[in-house]
């Protein structure tokens, strides 16, 4: 499970470099995300543009990442592919997360800190 991240002044963009978040890698994803939010700034944006498939274990892991964030932090999602968006929509989890069309629009305005 490869997660890349890039830091901006008040935001961390985490990019999932895998095409699936499924039962095989859900736990690993959850653990990696916890590390990245623990030491992250106020906004954490999860770029899902490379993720073509997400099952209920994957969804559970994304929800777990939201629950693991610090109170003052936000976990936002960006660039959901249609198959991923469908899972969020059917389960109404799309009402729980702030979802951006793309990683670029999500970090717009944030100042590059790297």
């Amino acid at each position, binding site marked *: 499970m490869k997660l890349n991240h890039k830091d901006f002044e008040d935001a961390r963009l985490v990019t999932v470099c895998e095409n699936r978040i499924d039962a095989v890698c859900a736990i690993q994803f959850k653990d990696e995300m916890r590390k990245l939010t623990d030491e992250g700034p106020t906004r954490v944006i999860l770029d899902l543009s490379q993720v073509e498939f997400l*099952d*209920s*274990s994957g969804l559970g892991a994304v929800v777990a990442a939201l*629950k693991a964030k610090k109170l003052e932090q936000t976990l936002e999602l960006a660039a959901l592919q249609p*198959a991923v968006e*469908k*899972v969020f929509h059917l389960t109404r989890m799309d009402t729980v997360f702030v979802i951006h069309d793309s990683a670029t629009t999500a970090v717009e305005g944030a100042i590059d800190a790297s």
Partner: protein
Amino acid sequence: MHHEKFPKIPKPATDKEEAALRLVIPANEEAVREGLSTIKSGLSDLEFSQDEWSTLELVVAEVLNNIVVHAYQERNDGMIETHMDHSNGSLLCKIIDTGNPMPGGELPNKPQSDLTCATEDLPEGGFGWFLIRQLTKDLNYGRMEDQNVLTFRLKFGEAS
């Protein structure tokens, strides 16, 4: 008591492809991932839309992963058999395992979770059967001797 209607006579297949596939995999998450890819390539002659492919992959993934986690639980020698039959715009799926029966002999039917709760109370699981019920038709479960047999249809290739 009411009379059952005669089943509708299906229209003969014209331009719709027919296909059948049978796949047996060991019950573990890696094999499920590989099996999904085998199913997609095995049925690749069928002209499904992107949305239909993703529905197929999601539903079968949920069913197979449930079997790995719940039906076989502690066992690591379990096998899962998947049959798929496509005709007249409908994909019939039959999935068989020899693990534990469904609790109460019935499929779980949990209502959709309330998400208006505090973040820390959000559910992290229980979406699987909800998704399966949303995306399938004619979902049926039966225990035949030592086998769990689940059947369902995905209605594809029809104008909606």
